[in-house]
C-alpha cells in the first residue's frame, strides 16, 4: 500500500463521480426548458441504480474470476472478499478503492446514452433500460477489456475506456436514436438549447473530472498518470479550438456550444491513448477530433436520425477516432507498458484497435436492440404525443425546472 497512490485514487474517484452531475448539467442545458429536469434526473438516477447493481453483482461479473473469457463469476457478489488490502488489480491501493473507481465508470456510461433519447423517453422505460443495459452490455464488455476477458489478452490498448465507455455508449445511442424515432417537430420546429451557461458549466465540470478519469486510470500517482493528465489537457484545448474554427469556416460563426462540444470531443478522443501518446501527438489527436465530430454532427441532419444530444457524433465518432489514433500515435517512449503505433513503426496495433472497436460496436448494437425491444414490449419507449408537447418534467415528474 502506498499512501500517495491511495490519496490520488481516492480523489480521482471522487472526481469521476462528479462527472455524472456534470454530464447532467451539460445535457440539461441543451434540451428545451420543459425537459430539463427529466434530463438531469436520468444522470442522477444512474448514480443510484448502478451503485446498487455494482455491490450486489456488478463488480463481480465485471472483475470477478473469469468464466471462459466472457464474464466474471459471482464469487465476489456482495463484494465478498473485496477488501481494504491491495487486490488483484491494484498493487499499491486497496482493492475496494479500485472497485470504487471502476464503479464511477460504470455509472457514467449509461448516463451518456440518455442524451440520445432525451425529450421523449418514458421514465420507467429509461429505468428498465439502464438496469438491463448495464448488466447485459456494460458488464461483459468491461470484463472483456479490463477484467481478464478475451479482449484483454490480445494486445489492444485502451487506457481509460475509449472502447468500454465511449464507443460502447455511442453504438448503443445510435440504435436507440433509430428505435425511439424523431422528436415531434424534428426538422420543422427549432430545438434551441434552453440554457447554454448550464451546458458550459457542465463542460467545465466534465473537463475537471476527466483528469480523474484519465490520469486516475494509471491507478497510481506516477509518471504515466502525469502523462495522461497532460495529454488530456492539450488534446481538449486543441479540440475546442478545432471545432470552433471548423464551424467558423463552414457556417461563418464560432459558437459557445461549439467550443464546449469540441472540448468534450477532445476528452473522448484522448481517453484511450492518454497514457500511451505524447503531448504533441495529443494536440494532433485533439485537432482532428474537434473538426471530425463537428462534421459527424453536420452529417446527422442529412442521415436523418434524431440523436438528440449527439451521443453518436461525439462519443461514438470521437471514441472511434481515439481508438484508432492510439493505434497511430502510441509509443513505448511514453509508457513502457504500452506499445508502439503505426507512426512509431508498428502497423499491427492499428488493426487490433480497429478490431476491438468493431467487435464492441457489433455486440453493443445487437444487445441494445434486443433490450430496447423488450423494454418497448413491457413498458413502451416513448411518452404520448401530448406528453411530449407538454414536456417530460410535468408529465413524468410533476415538476417544473424554473419559476424565475
Amino acid at each position, binding site marked *: 500500500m502506498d499512501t500517495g497512490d491511495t490519496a490520488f485514487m481516492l480523489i480521482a474517484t471522487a472526481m469521476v463521480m462528479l462527472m455524472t452531475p456534470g454530464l447532467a448539467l451539460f445535457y440539461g442545458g441543451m434540451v428545451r426548458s420543459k425537459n430539463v429536469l427529466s434530463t438531469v434526473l436520468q444522470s442522477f438516477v444512474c448514480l443510484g441504480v448502478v451503485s446498487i447493481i455494482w455491490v450486489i453483482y456488478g463488480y463481480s461479473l465485471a472483475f470477478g474470476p473469469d468464466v471462459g473469457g466472457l464474464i466474471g463469476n459471482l464469487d465476489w457478489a456482495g463484494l465478498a472478499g473485496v477488501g481494504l488490502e491491495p487486490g488483484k488489480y491494484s498493487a499499491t491501493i486497496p482493492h475496494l478503492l479500485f472497485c470504487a473507481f471502476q464503479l464511477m465508470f460504470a455509472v457514467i456510461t449509461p448516463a451518456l446514452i440518455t442524451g440520445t433519447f432525451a425529450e421523449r423517453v418514458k421514465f420507467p422505460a429509461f429505468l428498465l433500460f439502464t438496469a438491463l443495459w448495464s448488466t447485459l452490455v456494460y458488464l461483459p464488455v468491461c470484463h472483456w477489456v479490463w477484467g481478464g476477458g478475451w479482449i484483454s489478452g490480445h494486445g489492444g490498448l485502451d487506457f481509460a475506456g475509449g472502447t468500454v465507455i465511449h464507443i460502447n455508449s455511442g453504438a448503443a445511442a445510435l440504435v436507440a436514436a433509430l428505435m425511439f424515432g424523431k422528436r415531434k417537430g424534428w426538422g*420543422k*420546429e427549432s430545438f434551441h438549447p434552453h440554457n447554454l451557461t448550464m451546458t458550459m458549466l457542465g463542460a467545465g465540470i466534465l473537463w475537471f473530472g476527466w483528469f480523474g478519469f484519465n490520469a486516475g486510470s494509471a491507478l497510481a500517482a506516477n509518471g504515466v498518470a502525469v502523462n495522461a493528465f497532460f495529454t488530456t489537457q492539450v488534446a481538449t484545448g486543441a479540440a475546442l479550438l478545432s471545432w470552433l474554427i471548423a464551424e467558423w469556416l463552414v457556417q461563418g460563426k464560432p459558437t459557445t456550444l461549439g467550443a464546449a462540444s469540441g472540448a468534450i470531443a477532445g476528452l473522448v478522443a484522448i481517453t484511450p491513448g492518454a497514457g500511451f501518446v505524447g503531448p504533441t501527438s495529443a494536440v494532433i489527436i485533439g485537432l482532428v477530433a474537434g473538426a471530425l465530430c463537428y462534421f459527424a454532427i453536420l452529417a446527422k441532419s442529412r442521415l436523418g436520425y434524431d440523436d438528440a444530444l449527439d451521443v453518436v457524433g461525439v462519443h461514438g465518432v470521437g471514441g472511434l477516432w481515439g481508438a484508432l489514433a492510439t493505434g497511430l500515435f502510441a509509443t513505448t517512449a511514453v509508457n513502457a507498458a504500452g506499445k508502439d503505433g503505426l507512426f512509431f513503426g508498428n502497423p499491427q496495433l492499428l488493426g487490433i484497435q480497429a478490431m476491438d472497436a468493431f467487435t464492441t460496436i457489433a455486440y453493443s448494437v445487437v444487445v441494445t436492440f434486443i433490450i430496447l425491444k423488450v423494454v418497448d414490449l413491457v413498458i413502451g419507449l416513448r411518452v404520448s404525443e401530448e406528453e411530449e*408537447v*407538454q414536456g417530460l418534467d*410535468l408529465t413524468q*415528474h*410533476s*415538476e*417544473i425546472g424554473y419559476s424565475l
Partner: protein
Amino acid sequence: MKKIEAIIKPFKLDEVKDALNDMGIKGMTISEVKGYGRQKGHKEIYRGAEYIVDFIPKVKIEIIVEAAMVEAVVNRIRETANTGKIGDGKIFVLPVEEVIRVRTGETGKEAI
C-alpha cells in the same frame, strides 16, 4: 382599423404566423401570457407538497388590420390554431382609432 387579439396554444404559434404571413399579414406582436379557463391545469409536487396550478401557458397574438380584413384573419387563425381540444383559446376583436408608424409618422392603412 381593428385590433385582433388571439389567445392560442404556444405550440401553434409558428403555424398561425406562417398562415397569416401567407395571406399577406406583414406584422404582428406576440406575448407570453397565462390562461385560466375550462382547460384544467396541472399538479406539481415538491417534497411531498402538492400544488394545483390553474394557469396554463398561452401565447397572445395582437394584430392590427383594416376592418375589411378582420373576418378573413379571424377565420385563418381559427383554422390553424384549432386542435379540437379544450383550451384552444379565444379571439377578440377591438376597435382601434388610430395607428401610427414610429419611423415615418405614417398613419392609418399606411402604417400597418
